[in-house]
């Protein structure tokens, strides 16, 4: 039931924790952005490879854990890419099959290229996203939001959500174990009932928790704003230079590839 391992835990213990969040976000967001414009599938493939190596060897994230994470998007990507390859248009079909009168399937060089491009764009984008979530804890992201002058209310709401996610996960897990011990998930019908009870009781306890939270905050003179302390190690050229070089090489290779194709 709790199959999703929390990336946050890994993020709090990764080897790149002390690097300034701007550098890390620059790499992650820059790659996400640039990979979208890549004309050939090799570019996102290499970007994904480089970022994965960075995650596993430099940030020291467990390889097995990282691979299990990467398999989450694979299912979605494979299904959607299959549809793209079989149904999108191309000049000369390599293979075609009229399954139903309204559903002609065909594979052409173009649709194959497009499918591969989308597949690796997903992989590239996902590894960049994993890079951000595995190296930058949420608390650092709140600090960056604050520096970017995101409205306080938005940050406060995000922080409360963030805080309560962990409390509720713990509660849900306890209830789930208790239900499982009482054979709560032995039959599908039982499972639906247990699941509803689990969720209902979390809803009610969380509502109570919310009301208590208000009282507790008021005792501490809460006036609708959380004070936030933002301080980081300085941005280092040692880490920023490879990031800039990497991003520039993506841009140059994209430009070369589009020139070659055009």
């Amino acid at each position, binding site marked *: 039931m709790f199959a999703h391992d929390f990336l946050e835990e890994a993020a709090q213990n990764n080897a790149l924790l002390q690097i300034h969040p701007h550098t890390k976000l620059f790499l992650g967001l820059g790659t996400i952005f640039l990979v979208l414009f890549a004309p050939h599938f090799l570019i996102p493939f290499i970007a994904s490879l480089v970022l994965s190596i960075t995650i596993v060897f430099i940030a020291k994230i467990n390889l097995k854990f990282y691979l299990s994470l990467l398999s989450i998007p694979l299912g979605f990507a494979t299904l959607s890419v299959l549809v793209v390859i079989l149904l999108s248009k191309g000049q000369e079909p390599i293979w075609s099959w009229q399954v139903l009168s309204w559903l002609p399937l065909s594979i052409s060089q173009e649709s194959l290229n497009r499918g591969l491009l*989308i597949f690796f764009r997903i992989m590239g984008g996902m590894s960049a996203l994993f890079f951000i979530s595995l190296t930058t804890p949420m608390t650092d992201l709140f600090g960056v939001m604050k520096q970017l002058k995101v409205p306080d*209310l938005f940050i406060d709401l995000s922080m409360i959500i963030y805080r309560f*996610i962990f409390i509720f996960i713990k509660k849900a897990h306890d209830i789930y174990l208790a239900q499982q011990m009482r054979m709560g998930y032995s039959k599908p019908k039982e499972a639906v009932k247990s699941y509803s009870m689990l969720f209902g009781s979390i809803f009610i306890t969380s509502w109570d928790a919310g009301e208590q939270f208000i009282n507790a905050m008021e005792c501490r003179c809460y006036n609708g704003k959380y004070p936030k302390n933002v301080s980081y190690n300085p941005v280092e050229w040692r880490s920023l230079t490879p990031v800039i070089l990497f991003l520039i090489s993506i841009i140059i290779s994209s430009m070369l590839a589009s020139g070659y194709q055009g």
Partner: protein
Amino acid sequence: MHIMEGFLPPLWAAIWWIVALPFVIYGFVRLKQTIDENKDALPLLGICGALIFILSALKLPSVTGSCSHPTGTGLSAIVFGPFITAIIGFIVLLFQALFLAHGGLSTLGANTFSMAICGPFLGYYVYRALKDTKINIYITVFIAVALADLFTYVITALELALAVPAGEVGFIGLFITFLGVFAVTQIPLAILEGAVLALVFKYIVDIKPDIITKMKIFSEEQIHAARGKIQ
């Protein structure tokens, strides 16, 4: 059903961001008004956001064999209305992208549009339409939540189909194919989510009905009628 990072080409990613942002910003304005009137609402809203996150992180009892999980925004739409759900949904989707690798940042606009805007709006108006009729309140919740879920999935399929240049089958064919590919998991999931949230509602009515009357979700008579039926 989240669209993965990198699936949408830059143009469509930008378009969905532009479509989703006005709703999120207006939701934020509404949120600010609510908080200014009553600053106690902030923790409750935060908790509701966390709850949506948990609901989407818990895997439902797997019927179809895939790891299906509910969207959870239907309940929030019924409790807080669609605009505030848009902003909460936006934050939750951001967390899902960063914590669980569901969805992505460039596709956040598209995911927000389908999951935090379209689904909740439909669910909310279905609930409003059925609220004062004779229909049992649990059935109202079931229909609103299940339709919100289905609508989310239809919009997601639309977003996927629009992003790919269609061949002989045309745009409609592509749209239907995407609908068909994901129908296997999404239709049972919508029904299951509706049933689960209706049962959750029953649980809340049984144990703490004052939440429902306080938020003016259903009137006291309706709750009495519903409780009477059970006992």
